């Protein structure tokens, strides 16, 4: 089983990437699971066509029903869930949800499991997928915006801590080219500086938005499109990828110095 988790700055396209990657894996016959680790609980929307009940809602609010839903091509879709914005402790929610998922043994027959984690490693709870053998490989989604790379570098700090103590590794950077500045070289240089690599680039595509309006992935909605092929290739590369590094994260000044020449041009 391949267990990966996807991090990245909030709103950078993690959930879109995760859903389309999962759909591509499933399309190619892999038994796939997606675990949304974000209180917004929208990681699996495009795979199931709806918002599903979350693990925390089911176990703590004593709702009836399974803690998973089968989505596109029988992808096991799970949302950890969490508190309403501004209340409670979402990090603790992630920990409890992962314990419950493990206890229910829902993932044991899967070929690949993808954890879609909230924007940043803001507290110990959001580092939970990096620990206790939950995931092996981490991918960071980023655009070529300064703040996006800044967040990516921050995430690398979290990965580095757990990589030194455990088996988790940074497997690569996924470049989302949808920002106003499409500076591929900046992202490649960043990946190189932290000792990793860019494993794929997702170009801007109107089909992504159109498919999301229909609560679908581009793999399902527009299987013959270029963007669909991009996700297919990315899924292939992720499956074949054996790179795993302990990231050498940069200082704030180093990130700034790296980005500024690209941003000024």
């Amino acid at each position, binding site marked *: 089983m391949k267990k990966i988790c996807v991090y990245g700055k909030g709103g950078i396209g993690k959930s879109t990437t995760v859903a389309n990657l999962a759909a591509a894996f499933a399309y190619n016959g892999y038994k796939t699971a997606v675990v949304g680790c974000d209180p917004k609980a929208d990681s699996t929307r495009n795979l199931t066509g709806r918002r599903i009940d979350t693990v*925390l809602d089911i176990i703590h609010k004593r709702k009836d029903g399974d803690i998973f839903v089968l989505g596109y091509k029988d992808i096991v879709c799970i949302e950890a869930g*969490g*508190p309403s914005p501004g209340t*409670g*402790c979402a990090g*603790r929610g992630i920990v*409890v949800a992962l314990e419950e998922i493990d206890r229910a043994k829902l993932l044991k027959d899967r070929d690949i499991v993808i954890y879609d984690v909230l924007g940043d490693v803001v507290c110990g709870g959001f580092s939970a997928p990096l620990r206790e053998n939950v995931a092996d490989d981490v991918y960071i989604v980023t655009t070529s915006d300064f703040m996006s790379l800044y967040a990516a570098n921050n995430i690398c700090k979290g990965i580095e801590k757990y990589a030194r103590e455990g088996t988790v590794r940074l497997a690569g950077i996924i470049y989302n080219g949808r920002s106003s500045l499409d500076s591929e070289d900046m992202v490649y240089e960043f990946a190189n500086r932290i000792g990793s690599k860019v494993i794929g680039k997702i170009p801007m595509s109107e089909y992504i938005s159109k498919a999301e309006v229909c609560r679908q992935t581009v793999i399902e909605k527009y299987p013959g499109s270029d963007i669909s092929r991009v996700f297919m290739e990315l899924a292939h590369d992720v499956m074949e990828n054996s790179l795993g590094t302990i990231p050498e994260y940069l200082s704030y000044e180093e990130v700034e110095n790296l980005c500024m020449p690209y941003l000024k041009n």
Partner: protein
Amino acid sequence: MKCYDSCRLFGAYQAISGIKDNVVLLHSVVGCNFGTMGFHLTRDMSDMRQSCTVVSDKNIIFNGESSLREAIDNAIELYDPKSITIISGCVSSIIGDDIAGVLSCYKHILQIYYIEGAGFKGKLEGGYEDALLELAKNLVFKEDKFNNPCINLLGLNYDDFKLEEDIEEIKRILGNKVEIICVTADCTIEEFSNMGKAHLNIVFKRGRKLAEFLKSNNGIEYLEMDYPYGIKGANDLLDAVGNFFDIDFEAEKNIMMTQTLKRMKKAYGYLQSFYGLPICIFGQEGRAIGLKRFLEEELGMDVVCLGINEEGFVMEDFIEKVYESDAALVFGSSFEGDIADRLEIPLIRYHYPVFDRISISDTPYLGGRGAVNIVEDILHYVVDGRKNKGALYNEEDLCLR
């Protein structure tokens, strides 16, 4: 846990629980409820004015505000209290429960107050001080003073061993020349609210923030004192109050001296054996210093180790010194039982928490009567310890069995 270094929640609990028509509601995990209740119930098992939200995993994730509402509703139904004071624990402070928001829904029903007791925010003493201050800010207003000489007693603790007996003894010592408006460790909401009408606060080395507040807000002077152990301690209290109000307490002092000596004479032979006896004392400043003075100046003992629970105090260092000493007695809390056991010497319990003894008889430790009771207890512990190091009646030597 060692209470000499306990957390803010325990201090706030100590301070607030003395208000008898108030219910303490701990918004915390079950251990905080168990711990606080365990320490006070041995003093008064009939006094259950306490409730707890028992914060669970669900409350941590989704917030504990609904549980708090439920617990307040239950406390109102169960106790019908005049007021409720919420003391929050670590979890609710970490996750940021909006406790003030919850309480605002109850302000029109009853008096309800909130004190942050998170352990990571400070230690026991800070919790004690801040809790009294917070309550005073809500309850004590600028009012005219009573005509008679009136005082408040600050710094006694609700879960003190022999609290009620000691308060009664202080009242007896002062007689009818001075009225006590409020003893924060044993009062009602009304008495607490009336504190501002007193002329003087006696501060037994705790409740200093409250004393400062009452001075600036109500113009009440305060005098810091050690606990009035023994005749000297009681005389000091009478002198301080007498000087402030220009009251002559000589008659009361003479009566106390006469009555105490009359009883002490019966144990004269034993008392001689106290001279130079090496002992250890551990406790909070006001209590330990007051007891030291009594034991040294009135009984002639020799305090070879004194552990004052204050900022920078390291219990482990104190314990090491005790082990290296030739102490024949230890004065402390129930927690110091381990020290006494290891040294095979008696432990005289006088300080919070005492959870392995009860005190339901009228046997104070303060003042002249307290001196008699302490002497009596020392002798009993020493005589009972037949197997102890240096026992007066060694079992093997004297074949008592």
